[in-house]
Structure formats: C-alpha cells, structure tokens
C-alpha cells in the first residue's frame, strides 16, 4: 500500500473516481487499512473547499495490495443566469451534487472537470491558477446569446440564437478553450491585442483541443483538431468554429461566409476588428502546434503539449509575438531531444513564422501582414 501527495501521471490500473465524503470519513477511521486511513484523513483536512480540494483514488496493484493516492480535485460551481446578463446568477450545481435535469448545467460541470483533469495529468497543474482555484461557470447567459467567454473570473455560456449557434456548453473544446484563457491569465498574461492576443487565442485553442483529446483518449493522428464541433445548428454549412490542422476550412456557409483563418504568415490579417483579429490570426500558431503534435505522434498533451506549456510558463513576455513564442517553444523542444526540436522548427517554418532550415524565428511577422478592408 502506498500513499502519495500527488499523482505523478495517469496510470492505466488506477480506478478513476472521486470518493464521496461519507466513505472518506469511514476510511479515515479504518484500522485495517492504516495507510488508506491516513490518506483519507489528509483528504478530509485539506484546505477549505472554497480554496482547493483533494480526491482520494483507490486501486489494486499487481500484488493485490490496495493503493491509496491523494491528488488534487476540482471544485466546481455552476450557476444559471436564467436568460439575463446578470452574473453570476443562481447556483444550480456544486461539486458534491449529482446531475440535474438541465443538460447545459451538466455539460458545463463535466467540461470543467475534463479540463481540470487534463491540466493535472498533462502538466501537474492544479486548476487554472495552479493553486486549486475553484472553477465557476454560468450557463443560460443572455437571450439568444451567441457566445461563450471568460470574464477574468468565470466562464459564461450563452444558449445561442438557435439558427446559427446551439448552446455553447455542447463542445468540450469550447469549455477547455475558456479555461485555457484562465491559465494564460495566470501565467504569461498575454495582451489581448494583435499578435500576443492571437497567441492568447491559439493557446486557449490548444488547451481546448487537448482537453477533448485527453477525454477521448485520442492520439494526435486520431484527433479532429476542430474547435467547437457541434456548436453550429444543422442548418449551417460547417463542422466547427475553427480547424487547428487546416485553418480556413472549418465552415463555408452562404450566410456566414467562409472560415477566414489564415494557415500561414502570408495570410496574416491586419484589422482593427476583434482586437486586431485575434480569432483570425490564431490559425497560424494553431497550425504550428497541430503539425508539431502530429509529427511527434502519440498523445498530443504529452510531449507537444508540455513543450507549449513550458514555453507559456517559462517567462514568456505579455507582449510576445509569434516569433518570440516560436523561439521559446523551440528552446523547450530542444531540451526534450534533437528530433523534437527539429519537429518544432519544421512546424513553425511550415506556417512561415521562422525560415525553413534556420534555427531562429524571422521576427518578420509584421512584414508579411495582409491588410484587410
């Protein structure tokens, strides 16, 4: 029997599940399972739920011994705005409560949990801030509201207008994307304008895609690399909001137009819309990440995701350009192996952020900008 403060990585033999508090209390008094009892006591005396939570995981190892592991756990609260624009709304589900009749509430709850678990398994990060920050979300925001956003403190989901967009809780990648903005806020705090803004958006998409892939156990070549699949109504000619692997191909609809994302720097859009086109130009670093992950193979949240995460959390300036971020990711990739570094260089060269065959970023991003309008 063993007792660990934190879980090193996902292990196939570990039974996943949050132990209910009544069982923890019972275990804590156990004389037969003394180590498990100690782990249960640690869980019960963990800091108040408002700050951070822990979960006890039990499994049987290859020798038949009971293994008790304490690891961080999410602390989720879902509120309902009831069609208003008043936040936070009324609380409709908290961490220890079972599913409710409202599907949007359960989707938000589960999506928050999937994101939390991906951050923990892939990066050993305890929630958005790394300190067990409670995860709060509001559903049914506004009337026919066509959006989901991160307001700096919580995730907020609209129900969509019903003609173009359905409810925004329906895609795990969207939920992971919004919490990804939270991670960016607590790390590099990238400015939400121009290139750093597009990087902010891209990194949020990376977290969104990784959350979905982690939940479904997909390898990079099995993944769709779509963000927001299922968000459009069936009437729309489109499969998602964005395609990370093939930017510009997510939708092509008579009413909405064609997905405007560029796949490389030759298509960089200079605009005053959308804080400088942050949701458009994010296609460039998105494709770099997807190419990198596919080239490496396996689970994208492992090597590829870790390289991106370390670049994000390794002193990246808030004003970082694509070229600066490329340089940071290549440096992290080189630490893994020469082949990994080469794959990162190839990915960034493919999207025109660095020159092919050159080890450093060109820094010529602005020189290649396309001006719209």
């Amino acid at each position, binding site marked *: 029997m063993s007792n660990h403060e934190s879980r090193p990585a996902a292990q196939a033999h570990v039974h996943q599940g949050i132990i209910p508090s009544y069982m923890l209390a019972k275990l804590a008094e156990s004389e037969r399972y003394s180590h498990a009892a100690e782990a249960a006591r640690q869980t019960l005396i963990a800091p108040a739920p408002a700050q951070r939570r822990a979960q006890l995981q039990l499994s049987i190892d290859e020798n038949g011994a009971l293994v008790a592991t304490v690891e961080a756990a999410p602390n989720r609260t879902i509120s309902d705005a009831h069609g208003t624009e008043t936040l936070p709304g009324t609380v409709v589900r908290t961490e220890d409560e079972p599913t409710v009749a409202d599907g949007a509430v359960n989707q938000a709850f589960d999506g928050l949990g999937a994101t939390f678990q991906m951050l923990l398994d892939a990066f050993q990060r305890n929630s958005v801030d790394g300190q067990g920050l409670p995860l709060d979300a509001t559903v049914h925001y506004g009337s026919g509201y*066509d*959006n*989901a*956003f*991160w*307001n*700096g403190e919580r995730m907020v989901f609209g129900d969509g207008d019903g003609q173009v*967009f359905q409810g*925004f809780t329906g895609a795990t990648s*969207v939920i992971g*994307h*919004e919490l990804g*903005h939270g991670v*960016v*806020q607590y790390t590099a705090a990238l400015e*939400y304008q121009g290139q750093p803004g597009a990087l*902010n*958006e891209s990194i*949020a998409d990376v977290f969104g895609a990784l959350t979905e892939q982690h939940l479904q156990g997909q390898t990079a070549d099995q993944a769709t690399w779509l963000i*927001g699949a299922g*968000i459009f109504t069936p009437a729309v000619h489109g499969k998602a*909001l964005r395609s990370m692997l093939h*930017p*510009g191909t997510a939708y092509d*609809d008579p*009413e*909405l*137009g*064609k*997905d*405007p*994302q*560029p*796949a490389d720097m*030759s*298509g960089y*859009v200079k*605009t*005053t*819309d*959308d*804080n400088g*086109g*942050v*949701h*458009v130009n994010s296609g460039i670093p998105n494709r770099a990440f997807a190419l990198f992950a596919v080239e490496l193979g396996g689970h994208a949240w492992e090597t590829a995701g870790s390289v991106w995460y370390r670049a994000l959390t390794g002193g990246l300036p808030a004003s970082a350009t694509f070229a600066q971020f490329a340089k940071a990711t290549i440096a992290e990739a080189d630490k893994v192996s020469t082949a990994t570094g080469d794959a990162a260089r190839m990915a960034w060269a493919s999207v025109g952020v660095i020159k092919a065959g050159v080890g450093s970023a060109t820094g010529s991003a602005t020189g290649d900008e*396309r001006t*719209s*309008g």
Partner: protein
Amino acid sequence: MSEPPADPPAGVPADSDAAGDDGVAIRVARSGGIAGMTRRWSVQPSGSEREHWMLLVERCPWDEKPPAGTGADRFLWRIEVRVRQERHEQVIPEEHLQGPWRALVDAVREADAGAGGA
C-alpha cells in the same frame, strides 16, 4: 487563402453616400466572441424618423473613452454615426455597452433585424 473580414466593420464604406448629403446613417458592428465572426446592423432613417434617432445618438457620450475590456472572447462593438458630413465613431467592449450606448445598439439591431452575417 480565405477572405479576411471586412474592416472597419461599421465604417461608412464605399456606399457612404447612400444616406445622401443631408442624411443620417447609423451602423453598428459586433466583432470578436469565441467564434470571431463580425455581424453588422445599420439604419438610415428618413423624414420624421430622424428626430427619434438623433435623440438616441445625442444621448451617447461620444467624447468619453470607454474603459478597456476584460477577460477573453468578449464581443467588441463599433458604433458609427454619420450626420451629413459629420462622423462619430466609438469602439466599446461588450461589458461596457450600457445606458445610452446599449439603447442605441438595441434600437439599430431591432430596426435591422433581418441583416447581419459574417
């Protein structure tokens, strides 16, 4: 390569004469959001309608710079008004679209409910 979004979204573009030299044109555009799609609404009131619309326009604090936006994936509103040869423009983060700004935007959207798009 895909088509870039039009920019500026609610400016008085090539068809700026549509309202005529003594006309009024009010255009609003909503960009951003997680989808990054820009949608537009406009109204060109004429005759007796102008007074009502001018009242809505004049209530807005055009000279006050709105606070910066917070968070991510919020909408960004661009509001542009042309009265004869005079132009006013303001860009307002969604969370600060309140009071007379919200009233003006809601009125334009309601008057132009059939329009919009990427």
